[in-house]
């Protein structure tokens, strides 16, 4: 019977193996043909053109800006909510609110994309009249809302594991709740919070549908959030929507983009895991 279980244990390893092998073998031809230097030298990403350009910076810019906008919303808002829920809110309130917040992260991302494009963008256009139909601002803000529960949930868990004894020391000196929360609990929970932030970054970088629907599908080398642009993930979607014969340049290019994406999120995931382990060891 145990061999059945052991087979299950191997399943997760096989999946990783599958992802890595596929990304490597299918993108290998691309990297063999395209000199690495062009990825950084070229200014546009148009691998399917007759005169292809391979500046992956155009895609990375899109990912960078949308992620930055999302984090600018998610990290402050998520942290404030985490401090509030952990240090101020009544336990009963917290018991209801936490699962409801987690619902926010369970919404299908295509629904968020719909909302960003058709509801959020018109509102933003009232503030920024020149805002185009597709913009990184709109997609980024929506992503931020989706990511808040990651920050709040993990952050609040981290803060609540700081022992009450530590807080009492600060209260006994005459500090108030927010003071204790910011000066004692926050530093005490820091690696847990850092893990939450890093995992939020990873989530934002890997998001696909919201940016594909609301930020646009045309790669553009721009850092202006009021522009439309394609992210690494949106590019993969855009090419997949068309004809994709096995082994064609389009086929290879999405695996190349996928390989880049995998490396980025791997880095963030490993960092987040290490931070979380360090936090659990410290408490």
């Amino acid at each position, binding site marked *: 019977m145990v061999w059945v279980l052991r087979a299950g244990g191997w399943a997760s390893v096989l999946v990783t193996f599958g992802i890595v092998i596929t990304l490597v073998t299918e993108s290998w031809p691309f990297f063999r043909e395209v000199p690495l230097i062009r990825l950084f030298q070229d200014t546009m990403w148009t691998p399917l053109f007759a005169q292809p350009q391979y500046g992956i910076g155009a895609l990375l810019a899109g990912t960078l800006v949308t992620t930055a906008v999302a984090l600018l919303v998610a990290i402050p808002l998520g942290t404030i909510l985490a401090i509030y829920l952990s240090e101020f809110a009544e336990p009963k309130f917290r018991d209801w609110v936490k699962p409801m917040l987690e619902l926010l992260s369970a919404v299908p991302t295509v629904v968020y994309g719909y909302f960003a494009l058709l509801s959020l963008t018109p509102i933003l256009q009232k503030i920024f009249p020149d805002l185009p139909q597709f913009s990184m601002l709109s997609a980024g803000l929506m992503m931020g809302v989706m990511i808040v529960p990651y920050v709040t949930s993990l952050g609040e868990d981290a803060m609540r594991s700081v022992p009450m004894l530590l807080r009492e020391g600060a209260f006994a*000196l005459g500090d108030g709740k927010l003071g204790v929360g910011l000066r004692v609990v926050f530093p005490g929970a820091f690696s847990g919070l850092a893990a939450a932030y890093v995992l939020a970054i990873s989530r934002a970088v890997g998001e696909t549908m919201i940016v594909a629907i609301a930020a646009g599908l045309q790669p553009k080398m721009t850092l202006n959030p009021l522009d439309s642009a394609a992210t690494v993930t949106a590019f993969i979607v855009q090419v997949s929507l068309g004809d994709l014969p096995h082994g064609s340049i389009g086929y290879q290019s999405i695996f190349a983009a996928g390989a880049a994406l995998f490396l980025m999120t791997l880095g963030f995931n490993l960092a987040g895991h290490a931070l979380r382990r360090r936090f659990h060891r410290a408490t």
Partner: protein
Amino acid sequence: MSLSPDNARQSAPEPVVSDSKALPKVQIRGVNFFYGSHQVLRNVSMDVPALKVTALIGPSGCGKTTLLRCLNRMHDLYPGNRYEGSIQVQPDGTDILGSGVDPIQVRMRFGMVFQKPNPFPKSIYENVAYGLRLQGMNRRRELDERVEKALREAALWEEVKSRLHQMAHNLSGGQQQRLCIARAVATDPDVVLFDEPTSALDPIATSKIEELIVELKKRVTVMIVTHNLQQAGRISDMTAFMYLGELIEFGETNRMFTNPAKPQTEDYISGRFG
């Protein structure tokens, strides 16, 4: 030698005045404490003399720690607690259990050292400076002076003066507890409350802290909860014996240990229960 409720009720304590002529530092009058509907303290009254060490002793569950934590309103941090009675602090006579009194302000007048050392995840310096900053001190030179003074009072200065900016959790258990003492005395509180401060420490660390407390009482009033009768005998001037939420006997330590007035006190001190 029974401990029936009748015995206890007959000897309902009146406010026991200490034999010092000076005004007592803290006057506890008729304090009841409820945790939800469960009554933990019953009609406790005593005068805590200034600049002396007062020990609270008694078996587990007798309410000594609960009483201590009433003094700096720590129970306010948890829901479901209720105070009755009054606790007046001299020389101004403020009743710290009063409804208009802010617990934060009360806690600035009382220092507390806990059973387990609980230094903040900060440097040694910043641990001691925490309370000072809360009181508005932020000039570097002033802070440096006060931090050094507090660490000297806690007999820790020599050991840490060359590493003030290292993290506090690198210190040993005994050193951490002395750091917590320094932190508590840095702000010149009126009274310092010790809640079984040496129960988690080895004998050497314990004796260092006991020496410290005897020194400290020259400058501040001390109240200490202890499970260790010998410790109470070693360092305290006055002793209060509590049982099942009531104050059974309160008086000079020497007399109480050699010639206790109440039978329950004698039973506890001679080890017949506890």
